[in-house]
């Protein structure tokens, strides 16, 4: 049975299922319970700044649902140590921008322990983090920094595009034995759809064809899948058949799915809401040129945010974010 859930509800359900099925799974982060003192009558927990984890402390208790101080480096470093010594922590980094305060535990510890130790350790850690623009949260609470974690060997980076995808991908991430950065794009948080009940996993590293097409491939991930679908609907009205591919995970990357779609359509547009330099979009463009050159009937197009910080004004933020019109323009330029 499926019921309608928004993305936060689907994530909450995935965490609860994972915690019920494995006593080594814990949840830790700033205000994941939210409030600290569970004994005070007339108070309720916040369940995180967006309410995503509300109710979990009631079911699993304060031993397994831990409010940390606002100390991201201690939070993530401790989670890495716990993961290397028998726990399977889900650590919440409230906004991905806060990577600036706590990169070392991810870059130099989580990503490298297994390799440095010759394969004699594992770090089954999931870092849930809210990424991307769309809430007028401005320059320090809106960045899509998945390009950075994607570029670090030893880390995996996952970014779901809808509530049902978020549930299955999060369950797979939590149960994965490697450190996973799980990006919850702001652009999908208010999305509501049918989400299957019960326990299911979506394997990491397998992209999904969301819409079949034959004339052009639109590759998206996270919030840009919806942008690609809007563009595909408009293109269909104009007689162009667009295929939409949802990458689901950026590392591992389903290269065969990207090249398979390119082989079918001969034209490639990548839609990425991060800034363009050293981006996932340009990485996939390079893949298409390197391994798919013979399939290409037109230049590869990258539709990304501009090389700027994220602005506050709603007008500016919309100008910053890639839109369906930007995708249509890119397709138009391909001739």
């Amino acid at each position, binding site marked *: 049975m499926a019921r309608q859930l928004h993305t936060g509800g689907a994530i909450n359900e995935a965490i609860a299922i994972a915690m019920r099925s494995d006593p080594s799974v814990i949840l830790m982060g700033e205000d994941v319970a939210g409030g600290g003192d569970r004994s005070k009558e007339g108070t309720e927990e916040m369940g995180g700044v967006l309410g995503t984890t509300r109710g979990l402390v009631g079911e699993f208790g304060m031993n397994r649902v831990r409010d940390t101080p606002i100390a991201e480096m201690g939070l993530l470093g401790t989670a890495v140590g716990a993961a290397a*010594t*028998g726990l399977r922590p889900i650590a919440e980094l409230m906004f991905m921008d806060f990577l600036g305060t706590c990169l070392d535990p991810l870059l130099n510890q989580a990503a490298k322990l297994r390799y440095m130790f010759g394969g004699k350790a594992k770090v089954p850690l999931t870092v849930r983090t809210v990424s991307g623009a769309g809430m007028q949260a401005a320059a320090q609470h809106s960045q899509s920094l998945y390009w950075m974690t994607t570029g670090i060997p030893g880390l995996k980076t996952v970014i779901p595009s809808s509530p049902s995808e978020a549930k299955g991908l999060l369950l797979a991430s939590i149960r994965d034995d490697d450190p996973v950065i799980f990006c919850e794009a702001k652009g999908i948080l208010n999305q509501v759809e049918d989400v299957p009940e019960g326990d299911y996993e979506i394997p990491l590293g397998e992209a999904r064809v969301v819409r079949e097409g034959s004339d052009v491939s639109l590759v998206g991930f996270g919030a840009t899948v919806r942008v690609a679908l809007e563009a595909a609907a408009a293109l269909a009205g104009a007689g162009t058949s667009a295929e939409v591919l949802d990458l689901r995970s950026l590392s591992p990357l389903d290269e065969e799915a990207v090249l398979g779609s390119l082989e079918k359509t001969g034209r490639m547009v990548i839609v990425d809401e991060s800034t363009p330099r050293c981006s996932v979009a340009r990485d996939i463009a390079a893949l298409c040129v390197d391994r798919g050159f013979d399939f290409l009937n037109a230049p590869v197009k990258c539709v990304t945010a501009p090389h700027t910080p994220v602005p506050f004004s709603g007008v500016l933020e919309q100008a910053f974010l890639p839109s369906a019109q930007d995708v249509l323009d890119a397709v138009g330029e391909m001739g």
Partner: protein
Amino acid sequence: MDLSRDDLLGVYRRMRTIRAFEEKLQELVAAGKVGGFMHLYVGEEAVAVGVCTHLGDADYVGSTHRGHGHCIAKGVDVKAMIAELLARRTGTNRGKGGSMHIADVDKGMLGANGIVGGGIPLVTGAALSAQVLGKPNVAVGFFGDGATNQGQFHESLTMASNWGLPAVYVCENNGFGEFTPTEFAVPVKDIADRAAAYGMRAEIADGMDFFDVYEKAGRAIELARRGEGPTLLECKTYRFAGHYVGDPTPYRNKEEVEDWIQNRDPLDLFESKATEAGVLAADDLRTVDGEVDQLLREAVAEAEQAPKPEPADVLTDVYVRY
């Protein structure tokens, strides 16, 4: 003293092994047989051994760039360590870690760490594991005086104190953060003073005296095991060698260094106390010296014969599954 004659021989054997290991390493570096950055633990032996004598394999330690002593004190195989430093496939880390990442998780050794302060949150996490899973184990973090200026120290000790974690934070205050004297970099008289900021117990031990470290570490570890939370233990010690192998040490006064080496050597102090108490005889210790030298000679000979990694090994051990 709760240590038997056999215990004390074991203590001396580990301290002597650390000293001889580091001296052997200097020879190997001079002979061009070992590459990479190397930081020696000579002079600080009483700290690692004084603390780790209280620990079992299921207790964890986190370490620093100066980590060989912590490995040996925690019971990591010395031959596999030498093989690692000679970059062999038979090394503790299969030749992928080297000196600054030498580790053996099965022995509860969570790795030397190339990032100053980087090991402190890792042991805090190991203590969290013990607490969540209800295990009677403790986690001990070793770090230098310099690391106490890092945010990782501050954030980790804050969390450990909030949660009453079974952790002991052992600061090896050897007087220098790299080349800069501690008093230029640390604005408090004793590192132990910093514990007050976390509402944490603190103790100061003479890091050159095994018996003092042993007693104070024992108290802190026992309290942690009983669920009475973390302690910051400052051990005042001295780095007999430079910051790294090859450091010309122009920043240290030669008489000061000689004074520590001649009058405060932790192995000499141990020997005089143990022999004056009549528990061990000098002959017992010379026998151990010979056995340790023999072990290291064998370790080097075996490692030199051991296979190097294959180039294709560069691709393995990045992920469990990818």
